[in-house]
């Protein structure tokens, strides 16, 4: 971590994660009316939650787990399986499981 001086960058990510969690909890309690509009099977609010979660996950992986500063080869070795297999797993489970709804 020779490219970092001090610990400010750790605390910066801490505050980002804290603020995002705070926003999520506030939205979860208030549930603003305009966000309850349905869009592709679920509410806009749920999309907001999922996007905020992915932002949090990106910060944890990139900064805390240090992937941002790894070599390109390692980044690909980690990101490609995750970004291909997890959507695939989700897709195949939900489509193949659709017979349960009949």
């Amino acid at each position, binding site marked *: *971590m020779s490219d970092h001086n001090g*610990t400010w960058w*750790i605390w910066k990510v801490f505050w980002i994660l804290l603020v995002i969690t705070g926003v999520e909890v506030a939205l979860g*309690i208030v549930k603003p009316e305009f966000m309850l509009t349905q869009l592709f099977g679920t509410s806009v609010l749920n999309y907001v939650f999922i996007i905020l979660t992915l932002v949090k996950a990106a910060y944890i992986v990139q*900064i805390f787990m240090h992937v941002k500063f790894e070599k390109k080869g390692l980044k690909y070795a980690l990101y490609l399986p995750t970004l291909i297999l*997890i959507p695939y797993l989700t897709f195949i489970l939900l489509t193949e499981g659709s017979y349960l709804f009949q």
Partner: protein
Amino acid sequence: MASSAEMTQEENNWGGGSRPLGARYGKLMMWFFLLSDALTFSGFLTAYGLMRFKFESTWPIAENVFTHFPGLEGDQPLLYVALMTFILIMSSVTMVLAVNAGEKMNRKAVTNWMLWTIIGGLIFVGSQAWEWYHFIIGDSGAVETARQEILHIYNEEGERLSFSQVVHGMEEGHASNHGETFTKAEVLAAMKANEGMYIMEPGKAGVSFTHEASVAMLEAGDVVQGANMIHNEYGQKQFANFFFFITGFHGFHVFSGVVINFIIFYNVLLGTYERRGHYRMVEKVGLYWHFVDLVWVFVFTFFYLV
């Protein structure tokens, strides 16, 4: 002997001797383990989502289930789980600080931050135990029909009633049963006496029944309080099973993380890594610990928010 041109090519590509991934064996293997674990958790959460969509009318709304906060009376949705999230993020921060200190070979700082990380982990596991306790004990109680459907009791104003409120009345009763057990006869007698009471499915799109149908359904069915693998008062029984399994599996990860962190912490105290000349072990357990935090971020969203 290889020519210099060949050697350059070997360094640029994947030949032996060069380190194309720039990571040592232990770290690489930890990463690949975490990758497979990530797939395991995504499988669980996807299965949860599938079941939730299938049983939407009876699937409990998490904010009506996890409403307790230590020392506070009444409904406090999301507050406790937000606190748990904060604790886990905080212990992730102290873990990065420990890794950071390890790279500077600062043994005292590593000791300090590792200790805070372990404390954070223990508080999180303890909080989870507390939440499980309240989940298992139950809150308001519910009617379970002969077809094993879970239904909640409401009054004419459309307020959800606990058994305590049904039996003792709105003034005398508590919004939560506070560990008091009620028999089917007690609840049935109170429901018969009160024309306004009816039962409704717990989910977001739940169906409600008339007073007469409600009494008949309770007569044929039973009352249920608390949650276990077979019955739960919150709604669709798979909800409790998924809750126990996913948060349990995550909690087990946290617990083993605490144990591993403790072993590394002990080794830091002994000066093992000082003698070894590097603190790479701290970095490796750090990866595991952040992963536990990462999974929690998703569990938090899909179990409590969405």
